[in-house]
Structure formats: C-alpha cells, structure tokens
C-alpha cells in the first residue's frame, strides 16, 4: 500500500515546477563552480556550503507547504480503506525521494563528466549529506505540520527553525565559547553540536577531507576527541537519529490527529 501511495505521489511531485527549479539550481551551481575553479577541494567546500543552506531551507518549506496543501486530499484518502501509517510513510517517501534524487543527480552528473581526477569518497559524502539533510528537514516539516492546524503558523515555525539552525545557533554557540573559554569546553561543545543537524553535517564532511584549516573549532574537537573514524560514525549516527526522531513523533501524532 505504501508503494501505491508513493507511485501516484511521485507522478504528482515530479511534475511540480519547484522540483525542476530545485534540480536546475544545483545543476547550474555545480557547473559554474566547476567552470571557474580548478582546485577540487575548494569546489567541494563551496558546493557543500551552498548545500548546507539550501537543502534544509527547501526541504522544510516544500514539506510544510506540501502537507498543508494536501490536507483535504489526506482527509479524502483517509476515508478510503487505508492505514494512517501507510499514508504517512508513503507521503514522506513521496517527497523525500524526489527531493533527494533531484539534488544527487544534478550535483553528481556534472562532476562525473567534467572532473578527470575523481575523488569518489567526497562525491559520496556530499550526496549522503544531501540525502540525510533532506530526510531530516522533511521529517521536521511533517512534524510541524501535524502539530499545527494553521498554515501560516506552521510555515512561520518552519522558517524560524531553519533560521535558528542555519544562523542563530552558530552565533550563540560562538558567544558561549568565547565567554567560557577559561573552562574545558570539549564535552559541552560536542553536545551542542549534535543538537544542530546542519553543524553535524558540516562536521561529517570536514572530518573526511584534509582541510583542517577549514574545520573550525568543533571539527577540530571532533577530530581530536574521537579520531577520524569514530567521530565520523558518531556524527553520522546522530544525523540518522535526527531524521528518525521527528519522523516517529510525526507519525505518532498523525495517528491521533483529527481531520
């Protein structure tokens, strides 16, 4: 049943102009970066920085608007012999799959065709982060939409959450580190970093590239504290958890929701 819902939602979403604009954006960005920069590492760093801002924003906004716009349709489907759980999972995949694949394809294709010396590990990493971030922020958007009946409020919370994770959090974080720099800050830093999926993704990529200068404070701590492999595993697992938790809470409240 999940497959059936997924199939028809893909028919719908793949024809939406936003998904096409989204793919084109990453396709053109990647092409431009490849055209004007020779240093492969720099290309990946720029690409990653764009990805870390755009993917969460698009996923959370697209997810929230999609959910509110589908409300009558959800109600209609739930009046059919259909489990709520199946519908929720189908809708989630129907959105996160096209979003993930449109970015993965539009970033990977230009790289594969235009760079002669390939670094497959980094390509894989850029794609895994895109995949994780898409799923995390679509899950968050569904959770927000299930909990709020008002569209304007839901959308507001989504944008606010993105702003916090993308900008505000880092500012407060840095301020805290400067204010308390007489104390040992490794553990609090690690905990605070795990609470922001965007920071976690940044670390995930940076731990695997040898650009220690660009790693920043948290990256350095992760590297020192856990060493490359364990640090990578921990940040990866935290990111997976970041996708699973909002998804499960969303599903739980979806099952109880009045339509």
């Amino acid at each position, binding site marked *: 049943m999940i497959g059936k819902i997924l199939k*028809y*939602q893909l028919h*719908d979403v793949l024809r939406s102009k936003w998904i096409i604009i989204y793919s084109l954006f990453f396709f053109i960005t990647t092409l431009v970066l490849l055209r004007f920069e020779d240093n492969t590492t720099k290309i990946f760093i720029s690409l990653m920085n764009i990805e870390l801002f755009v993917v969460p924003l698009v996923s959370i906004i697209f997810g929230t608007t999609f959910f509110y716009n589908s409300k*009558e*349709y959800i109600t*209609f489907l739930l009046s*059919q*012999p259909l489990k709520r759980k199946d519908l929720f999972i189908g809708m989630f995949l129907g959105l996160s799959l096209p979003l993930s694949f449109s970015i993965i394809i539009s970033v990977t294709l230009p790289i594969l065709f235009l760079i002669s010396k390939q670094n497959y590990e980094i390509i894989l990493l850029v794609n895994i982060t895109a995949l994780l971030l898409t799923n995390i922020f679509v899950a968050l958007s569904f959770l927000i939409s299930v909990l709020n009946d008002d569209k304007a409020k839901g959308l507001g919370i989504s944008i606010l959450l993105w702003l916090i994770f993308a900008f505000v959090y880092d500012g407060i974080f840095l301020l805290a580190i400067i204010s308390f720099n007489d104390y040992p800050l490794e553990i609090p830093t690690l905990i605070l970093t795990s609470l922001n999926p965007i920071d976690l993704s940044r670390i995930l990529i940076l731990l695997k590239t040898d650009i220690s200068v660009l790693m920043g404070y948290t990256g350095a701590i992760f590297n020192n504290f856990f060493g490359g492999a364990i640090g990578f595993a921990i940040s990866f697992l935290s990111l997976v958890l970041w996708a699973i938790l909002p998804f499960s809470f969303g599903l739980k409240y979806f099952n109880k929701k*009045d339509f």
Partner: protein
Amino acid sequence: MIEIINLKKSFDDFKVLKEINLSIREGEITAIVGPNGSGKTTLIKSILDLIKIDFGKISIGKYVLNGKCEYRKQIGYMPQITRFPENLTVSQLIEMIKDIRNQTGNLDEELFEKFLMEKELPKQIKNLSGGTKQKLNAIISFMFNPQLYILDEPTASLDPIASSELKDKIIKENKNGKTFLITSHNMHEIEELASNIIFMIDGEIAYCGSLSNLKFETKEDNLERAIANLMRLSKN
C-alpha cells in the same frame, strides 16, 4: 446499519458532540440537518474515523470501530470539498483510487457516463472547474458499489442537471437496498430524498425519526417550517 452509543468529542474545551446516541436504519436515506457548527460534519467524520472520538462506541454493520481501516471498504464518502493532487490527470486519479481500494471489478460507472467524464480523462486536475471536481468527487464515491453512502452537502456546487442526475442516482441505489447518510441545508432536497431525519443543535440530537412523524408532531406540512418549529421548541 450504524449504531452510535454515548459518543463524545470535544476540541480543546469546546464540546462539539455531547453524548450522542443514534441508530441509523439499513436501506433507508437519513438526512442530518442543523445550523452551522451544530456538529454534523464532526459526527460524519467520527463515523469515518477521520476524527478520533473521546468516548463512546460506533459500530457499522458487524464492525465495531477500533482503529482498523477495512470497514471503510463498504463506505462511499463524498466530502464537501476535496482537493486532489493538482498535477495528476483525471484518469490517473481514478486509477489510483481503484488501486488503493484494490477493486477493479464490480464498478459502478453510471455517474461517470452521465456526467460525460470521458472527455475530461486526459486533463490535469488543476485545469478542471469547481463543478467538474465536485462531479469527480461524486463519481468516485459511487464507483465502488459500497453498502453505505455518506454524502456531505452532495449537490452544493453542482449545476441543476448534474444535481438532478445525482439525486436520481441516490434514489436508484436506495431502491437497490443501499443506506444513505446525507447532510444538506436544502430542505426541498431532503424532502425529496430522505425518509428519516436527524436534527442536531449544539452537539446534541434534538430530533431523530421519520420525516412524516416530524411533520405530524410539529403539525406542519412543510419541512422547513417543521424544522423552524423544532428550533423554537429546543430553545425554550
């Protein structure tokens, strides 16, 4: 067909349904009437499990509502407004519902033909007019030969031709022994179709019984006046 015992539902602190006890007879057309906000749609949605009730028991035929979804196979529901995925075509949408209900045989396509839907099949939903969408809505709710039809303001946005065709279809299916639960604000329509009436006010049932009995009790000949009479009585 439908038995409701001690049904209660509130949104936050507002009691939408207060202890509803109801029995809807099989093979008859029952109309739910009442002012806006009296709980009609909430009652319908409770029967469909779209709204999770706070207290009480609902049973449909031999099924008791317990969170499972299979019982909805015997229900055809036509909501007041539906928005289907805009980028799907009409034929894809119909395919999808058949797929989800897992029913490809025993289809009732009479409304599909009467509403001349054939020519709309390749169009995307977003290019359909409001009335055509409502026709599509009606076609889908009748398509799977359900035992119970729940229609929420079925003729509200239909043109007179489509509206009378839908009413003819309702009467025809009722003669075949199907049960109908209809809400409407149009008293003429109810007089034309229904044999039983449920009158709701402020989340309570003010009257439940046959149409002829209601007219007899209120000593009115006309349903509109009978209902008005009932509203005055329930206020005192």
